C-alpha cells in the first residue's frame, strides 16, 4: 500500500536528484563552454591527444550544416561498425559460450537501436551478445550516442546565446568533452558503486553451480519436429546444475543508466539481480538516469546567463513527473482485483513481474523515471503492470521524452516545446513571439513543428502498420486490448528512442526489426538535424531587448503554459489510441 515509508523514499529520491543536479550543472556548463575545470587538468592530455590523432582543430567553428554533417556521419560510421560486429561476433574473441552472429534484420535493428540512444532489444542479452560485442559495440554506443545528444543540445544553446553569426561550435570538441569530462568520470564512479552492491565485473564467463535441489522439467519438441510428428511428447529432463551468466556487467550498467540508453546485459534488464542487486543500487541507478538531464537544465541556465531559465524548466519537468509517478504508484498498489480475490487477506499490490527487494513503490518509480528520461531500462516487467500503471510509462514516452528526457535530447525537446509555448502565447496577444531575446519566426516554427510531429507520426503510423499486418499481430503475447497496448507501447518506445517494452511482444521478426529500425532512425536524426537547423537560424538573429510586451519565460505563468502545451499536444494525439489500449483494459478489469 502507499505507506509513509514509501513516501519518504520518493522524497529522498527527489531531494537527491534536485540537489545533485545543481553542482553537476555547474560542472557541465564549464565543460561545454570550453572553460577551465578540474577534470581538464587531469584528462586534458587525452583530449588534446584525441584531436591530434583525428586531425581535428577544436577551435574551428562550424556552421549548422557542417555540424549536422559531422554528427550524422560519425553516427552512421558507428552504425556500420556495430552492424558488422554483431554479424561477425561468432568469429571474434571474448565469446565464452560460443554465441552465433546475429541475423541481418536483427543486427540492423540492434545497431540502429544503439546508435540512436534507443536500446530497444529484440534479443535476450545473455543469450545473443558476446562480451566483446557488449563492450566494444554496445558500451561504446552507450557513450557516444549520449555524447551526441549533449553536443546537439550545446549547439542549440549556442544558437540561443550567440548573435549574428553562422558558427554554432565544433561537433568533435563537444563530443569529446562530453565523453571525457561528463560521461566517463561519472561512469567510473557509478560502476564501482554498483560493483560494491553486488554487480559482477569480470572477464570470466559463465559458471556452473551444483544445485541444492535438482529441478525436473520438460523440453517441448521444436515447432518443426512437432509439425512433422504431432504425437511427439515433451522430453523430461532433470537439471542438476545452474548455469550462471557473468561478465563485465558493472561497467556497462553504469553507462547504460548515465547515458539514458537502457540496453541490458541480461534479458531481464535491471530486474536481474546481477544488474540491480539491492535497493541502494536501485536508487543509484534511478539517480543516474535523471541526473545528467536534470543537470543540463542548470547548465542551460548558466550558459544563457539567467539561471532562472533553467529552474523554470526543472519546475515544469518535476511537476509533470510528480503527476505521473503518483498515478503509477497508486495503480500498482491497487493491483488486479481478481488476483486479490483469489489470494485473500491483506493485499500488497501487483507483484507479477516485480522483484521483491524493490516492491511496489520502487518498481513504479523506476518505470516512471526510465520513461520520463529516454532510458528504457526496466526493473520490473511493464507488460504485467495494471492497465493504468502501464499507461504511465507509455504516455511519458508519447509526450516526446521531455520530462527530464534523454541525455541532451530531453532538454532540446523541451526547449522546442518552450518555443512552441511562446509561439502560442504570441498568437494569443498578437505579438511576434520571442524566446531569450530571439524572435521566433516562420522558419523556427516550422522546424519546431517537424521536431514535434516526427515521433508522433512514427508512433501512430508504426502501430497502424503493425496492427494491419499478420506479422505485426502474430507477435502479440496477450489477448484483447492488452495485445494492442503491446504494439502501441513498442512504437511509442522506438519512435521516442526509449527502448523499454511490453516485453511479451515477440519483436524479433522482419516487420518490427526493419520498420522499428527505420522509426528509430527518423525520430533520432530527423529531430537532431532540424534542431541544428534551428540553432543555425537562431544564431544568425539579432538580440531583441525585452520590452513591456515580452512574455517573461522564467515565471510560474510560463511554467504552467509549458506544462499545458506538452500535455495538450500529447493528449490531442494519443487519447484515441490510449482509449483502445490501456483505458478500455482498465474498464474491462473493473467490470469483471
Amino acid at each position: 500500500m502507499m505507506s509513509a515509508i514509501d513516501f519518504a523514499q520518493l522524497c529522498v529520491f527527489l531531494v537527491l536528484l534536485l540537489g545533485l543536479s545543481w553542482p553537476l550543472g555547474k560542472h557541465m556548463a564549464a565543460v561545454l563552454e570550453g572553460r577551465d575545470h578540474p577534470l581538464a587538468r587531469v584528462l586534458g592530455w587525452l583530449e588534446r591527444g584525441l584531436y591530434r590523432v583525428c586531425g581535428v582543430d577544436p577551435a574551428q567553428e562550424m556552421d549548422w550544416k557542417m555540424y549536422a554533417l559531422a554528427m550524422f556521419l560519425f553516427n552512421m560510421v558507428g552504425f556500420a561498425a556495430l552492424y558488422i560486429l554483431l554479424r561477425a561476433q561468432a568469429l571474434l574473441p571474448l565469446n565464452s559460450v560460443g554465441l552465433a552472429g546475429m541475423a541481418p534484420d536483427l543486427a540492423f535493428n540492434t545497431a540502429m537501436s544503439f546508435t540512436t540512444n534507443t536500446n530497444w532489444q529484440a534479443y535476450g542479452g545473455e543469450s545473443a551478445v558476446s562480451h566483446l560485442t557488449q563492450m566494444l559495440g554496445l558500451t561504446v554506443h552507450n557513450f557516444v550516442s549520449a555524447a551526441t545528444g549533449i553536443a546537439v543540445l550545446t549547439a542549440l544553446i549556442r544558437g540561443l546565446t550567440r548573435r549574428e553569426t553562422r558558427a554554432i561550435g565544433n561537433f568533435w570538441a563537444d563530443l569529446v568533452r562530453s565523453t571525457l569530462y561528463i560521461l566517463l568520470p561519472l561512469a567510473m564512479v557509478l560502476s564501482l558503486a554498483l560493483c560494491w552492491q553486488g554487480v559482477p565485473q569480470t572477464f570470466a564467463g559463465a559458471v556452473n553451480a551444483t544445485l541444492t535441489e535438482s529441478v525436473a522439467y520438460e523440453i517441448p519438441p521444436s515447432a518443426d519436429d512437432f509439425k512433422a510428428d504431432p504425437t511427439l511428447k515433451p522430453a523430461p529432463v532433470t537439471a542438476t546444475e545452474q548455469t550462471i551468466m557473468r561478465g563485465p556487467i558493472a561497467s556497462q550498467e553504469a553507462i547504460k543508466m548515465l547515458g539514458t540508453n537502457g540496453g541490458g546485459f541480461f534479458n531481464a534488464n535491471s530486474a536481474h539481480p546481477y544488474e540491480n542487486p539491492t535497493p541502494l543500487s536501485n536508487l543509484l541507478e534511478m539517480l543516474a538516469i535523471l541526473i545528467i538531464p536534470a543537470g543540463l537544465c542548470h547548465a542551460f541556465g548558466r550558459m544563457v546567463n539567467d539561471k532562472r531559465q533553467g529552474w523554470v524548466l526543472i519546475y515544469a519537468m518535476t511537476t509533470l513527473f510528480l503527476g505521473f509517478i503518483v498515478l503509477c504508484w497508486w495503480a500498482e498498489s491497487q493491483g488486479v482485483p481478481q488476483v486479490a480475490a483469489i489470494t485473500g487477506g491483506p493485499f500488497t499490490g501487483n507483484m507479477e513481474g516485480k522483484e521483491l527487494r524493490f516492491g511496489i513503490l520502487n518498481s513504479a518509480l523506476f518505470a516512471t523515471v526510465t520513461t520520463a528520461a529516454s532510458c528504457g531500462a526496466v526493473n520490473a516487467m511493464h507488460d504485467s503492470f495494471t492497465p493504468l500503471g502501464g499507461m504511465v510509462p507509455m504516455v511519458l514516452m508519447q509526450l516526446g521524452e521531455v520530462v527530464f528526457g534523454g541525455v541532451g535530447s530531453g532538454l532540446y525537446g523541451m526547449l522546442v516545446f518552450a518555443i512552441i509555448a511562446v509561439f502560442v502565447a504570441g498568437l494569443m496577444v498578437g505579438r511576434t513571439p520571442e524566446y531569450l531575446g530571439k524572435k521566433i519566426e516562420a522558419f523556427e516554427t516550422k522546424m519546431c513543428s517537424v521536431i514535434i510531429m516526427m515521433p508522433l507520426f512514427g508512433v501512430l503510423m508504426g502501430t497502424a502498420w503493425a496492427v494491419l499486418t499478420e506479422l505485426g499481430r502474430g507477435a502479440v503475447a496477450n489477448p484483447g486490448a492488452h495485445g494492442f497496448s503491446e504494439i502501441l507501447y513498442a512504437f511509442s518506445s522506438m519512435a521516442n528512442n526509449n527502448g523499454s517494452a511490453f516485453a511479451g511482444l515477440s519483436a524479433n521478426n522482419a516487420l518490427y526489426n526493419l520498420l522499428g529500425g527505420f522509426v528509430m532512425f527518423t525520430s533520432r536524426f530527423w529531430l537532431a538535424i532540424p534542431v541544428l537547423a534551428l540553432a543555425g537560424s537562431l544564431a544568425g538573429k539579432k538580440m531583441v531587448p525585452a520590452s513591456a510586451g515580452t512574455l517573461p519565460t522564467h515565471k510560474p505563468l510560463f511554467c504552467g503554459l509549458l506544462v499545458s502545451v506538452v500535455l495538450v499536444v500529447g493528449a490531442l494525439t494519443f487519447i484515441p489510441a490510449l482509449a483502445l489500449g490501456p483505458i478500455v483494459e482498465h474498464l474491462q478489469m473493473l467490470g469483471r
Partner: protein
Amino acid sequence: MIRDILHTLRPACLMLVALSLISGLAYPAMVTGMAQALFPRQANGSLVTSGGKVVGAELIGQQFSGPGMFWGRPSATSPQPYNAAASGGSNLGPTNPQRLKNVAERAEALRNTHGDGPVPQELVAASGSGLDPHISPAAAQYQLVRVARERGLDEPSVRALVAKRTEGRQLGFLGEERVNVLMLNRDLDSLAGKAQNTGKQ
C-alpha cells in the same frame, strides 16, 4: 557537398576508433581491475561455495519445491524455472486469463500444504527476472510451520534462522524487508546436518 563528406569521413572514422578504444576497452578494463581489487567477491558474482564446489550465487535464486524447504517465488524462465542463462518474467498482462489461472493454481497448491488462509502475494506472482532470490518475512512466516514439521525441528530454532536471514530495509528505509531463500535453506541443511549428523537431507 561531396568534398565536405569526404573531408568529414576521416575524422569520423578516426574518432570512432579512438573513442571505442577508450570507452569500449580501456574503461571496462580499468573498472574490472579496480573492482577485482576492491570487491573481489561481488565482482565475481557473489558465489556460494561448499567443499570447493560452487553451489550457487547469493544473488541468484534457485528452485525449491521439497517439503522441507522454504519455497521461493514462481519463476517464468524457460525451459526450466530459475534458468540463470535466460532471465525474464511471464509478461502476462493484468487481464490475461492465463495469469488468473496461474495464480489460482499456485494459491491452491499452497493452500493444500498450508491450510486455507490468505496466501502471500509474491508466492503466486512470477518475479521480473525469474531469478528473484528473496521472499518477504511474511511469506517465510507462512511456510515456517510446514518446514519445521517436515524437518522434525522445533519452530523457535527455524524462526531464529529466518530472523538471521531477514534483511531489513537498506539504510533503514530503502526497498523492502526480505529473506534470502537459498541462504536460508542452506542454513537449514547445516542445522539439520548438525542435529542428525547425516549431512544434507
